[in-house]
């Protein structure tokens, strides 16, 4: 090994490929969430801002989004999707849903449920004009046993949205539409049917978006800093202790005023949050818990974060509580979905 004896200053191989071959070394983006950031300047995000006051009538339209549990998926860009054809999409999708439901089933006696599909656009849910408007898909059932009663019950809702998704949409070719976040409320079987139709029609791919404890701690810090008017619930963090014979969950609830006071002492620049501030906030909470119970919460897994603004579970389930912060929360979720796609 003659060459090895030349001394430590050997020419380094200049391949463009990272040497570890694991997800961490691959991407080079500045995002704070993906573990693949490689020593960029300290990641920071803008604080979730309350929506402007003139969106009062929009809150009416989006009120149905609040206080429901939404399951999160990330969606790759849709090919040849156009907003002008929403009605055609509803017809095609309802035909598909009807066909899937009837597949392999004997015809039921006594009132078969007709499923009506509607695909509409929600123009308010976007961050800037560059974003695509949100698309809402709803399955509603109307029992044919009482045809006079035309009351429809929504049995399944799903909506695509994109808030501040510039990172993905600016590099896309023309024929693609960028709607990276998909939220679902309803039965899993319907989700599978609608998802299959979208995947076949627009050549996209749906993947469950799970929230890592790292992301959840960001959400806890960000949402604690938001001002809420009504007397709001406490900030609650749920931890799961690994590797025990019986599963153990620890729930840590903090009075909202105290949590906000703590965050106010930590946050330096109003409107911006850095990784250090989030770490300090969580470390304060953990050390307080340790002082009382002698349990290191940092060794457990943060599973659920529940604040007055929204609550998020690590399986990718979210619940919005305040309509004024809806866009802000969606912006964060869009960022996470884009991370997962890339």
């Amino acid at each position, binding site marked *: *090994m003659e060459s090895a004896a030349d001394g430590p200053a050997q020419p380094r191989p200049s391949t463009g490929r990272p040497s570890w071959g694991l997800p*961490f070394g691959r991407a080079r983006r500045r995002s*704070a969430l993906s*573990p693949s*950031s490689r*020593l960029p300047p300290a990641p920071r995000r803008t604080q979730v801002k309350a929506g402007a006051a003139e969106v009062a009538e929009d809150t009416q339209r989006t009120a149905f989004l609040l206080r429901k549990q939404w399951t999160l998926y990330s969606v790759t860009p849709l090919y040849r999707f156009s907003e002008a054809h929403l009605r055609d999409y509803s017809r095609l999708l309802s035909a598909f849903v009807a066909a899937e439901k009837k597949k392999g089933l004997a015809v039921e006696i006594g009132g078969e449920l007709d499923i009506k599909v509607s695909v509409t656009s929600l123009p308010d849910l976007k961050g800037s004009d560059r974003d695509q408007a949100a698309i809402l898909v709803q399955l509603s059932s109307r029992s044919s046993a009482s045809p006079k009663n035309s009351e429809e019950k929504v049995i399944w809702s799903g909506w695509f949205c994109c808030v501040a998704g510039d990172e993905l949409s600016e590099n896309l070719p023309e024929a693609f539409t960028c709607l990276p976040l998909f939220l679902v409320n309803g039965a899993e079987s319907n989700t599978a049917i609608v998802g299959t139709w979208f995947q076949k029609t627009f050549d996209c791919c749906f993947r469950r978006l799970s929230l*890592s404890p*790292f992301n959840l701690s960001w959400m806890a810090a960000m949402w604690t800093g938001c001002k809420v008017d009504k007397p709001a619930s406490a900030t609650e963090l749920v931890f799961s202790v690994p590797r025990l014979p019986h599963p153990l969950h620890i729930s840590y609830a903090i009075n909202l005023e105290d949590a906000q006071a703590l965050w106010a002492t930590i946050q330096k620049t109003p409107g911006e949050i850095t990784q250090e501030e989030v770490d300090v906030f969580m470390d304060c909470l953990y050390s307080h818990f340790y002082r009382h119970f002698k349990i*290191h919460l940092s060794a457990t897994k943060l599973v659920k974060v529940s604040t007055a603004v929204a609550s998020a579970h690590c399986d990718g389930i979210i619940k919005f509580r305040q309509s004024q912060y809806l866009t802000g929360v969606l912006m964060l979720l869009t960022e996470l979905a884009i991370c997962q796609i890339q």
Partner: protein
Amino acid sequence: MAVLRPFSKLPELNSAVLLLVGSEGDFQQKLAEAILQEKKDFTVNVHIATSLPLPSERDHLRPQIDMIVFMIDIKNKYSLKNVEDSLAYVDAKFFLGKVCFLVTGVGRVNCCSVDMNAVWKLGENYCSPVLFCELELEGTRVATAQRLLRMLQICAGYVPGVSALYFSTLMTTFSS
């Protein structure tokens, strides 16, 4: 003597000592077993510790340590803090290639609790390579054991012409 020094004791003939430091009990044990099962032509002793400093009572019985591997579990934020606190008890001369950071649990990225930037910064600040592995799977555990064994062989001086200082090449980032 609370601080670990690399050359404070006499080395044994044809043997090398590896110290695994980390708060993760199970996988440390399994990794140690995997290292010991590898075919090698020198004796390997693996010492396991949850944190530094090592208890001083048995200090006279301990051999010279050739390489320290600090294990960080990405699912466990406490393990990073543990490692950061333990680093204070390592002499500066160890950081000339005889220390390496091993990040485990990378198979489960969805359970990541640790900020990867902090880990990279740790590697940069202490001039030591950061390796990634997954100890739950047999295959990668064996591969990691082989890699660590090779590094140990070099640190203990059993590969002629190659010294531990060359491990700085493992820290190169191939940034595009």
